[in-house]
């Protein structure tokens, strides 16, 4: 029988899902709580800190991705990096394309759209690569 080693790779997906979900949940909570906090806290808490609050879970999401990267094996790491590289390329092109469209008269978009755009590109790229891999 093959000697079975302790295999963190096997549980990497589940750990990632848990960590990422917690960070995503905190983000939703922070976004929802922000207006209420801005209205109901006195001058003792600077408004800039409350406005920055959702940034903390965003960094936690990045940390969850990084921890996942460190846990998976070399082939999965390669696939993850390829996906991120393609998503970054497509996302960057989309942003530049839209900036030219703004010159053509389309409404300017807030920078807050950059992150969801990149996340959507990442998700789409991952889905396409998964299908191609099969």
């Amino acid at each position: 029988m093959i000697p079975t080693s302790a295999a963190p790779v096997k549980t990497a997906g589940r750990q990632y899902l848990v960590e990422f979900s917690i960070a995503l949940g905190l983000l939703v909570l922070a976004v929802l709580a922000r207006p209420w906090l801005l209205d109901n806290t006195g001058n003792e808490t600077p408004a800039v800190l409350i406005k920055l609050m959702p940034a903390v879970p965003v960094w936690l999401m990045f940390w969850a991705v990084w921890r996942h990267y460190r846990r998976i094996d070399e082939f999965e790491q390669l696939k993850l990096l390829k996906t991120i590289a393609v998503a970054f390329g497509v996302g960057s092109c989309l942003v530049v394309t839209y900036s030219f469209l703004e010159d053509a008269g389309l409404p300017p978009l807030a920078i807050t759209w950059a992150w969801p755009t990149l996340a959507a590109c990442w998700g789409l790229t991952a889905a396409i690569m998964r299908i191609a891999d099969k």
Partner: protein
Amino acid sequence: MRNSLPALRAEHGFTQAQLADALNVSRQTVNAIETGRYDPSLPLAFTIAKVFNKQIEEIFSPEA
């Protein structure tokens, strides 16, 4: 790079999942190596050789 991993695995009666556990990689990684879609790193190749008690060159060979 070609490899004799499927034959070796069958010879030892291992499933891809069992071999993946022994190598601490995912089953998809074992599958990718067996089908030639991925060439393992030198450390992983050494681990594979160790699991089957063989030399690396007995398992992996250059593409003809």
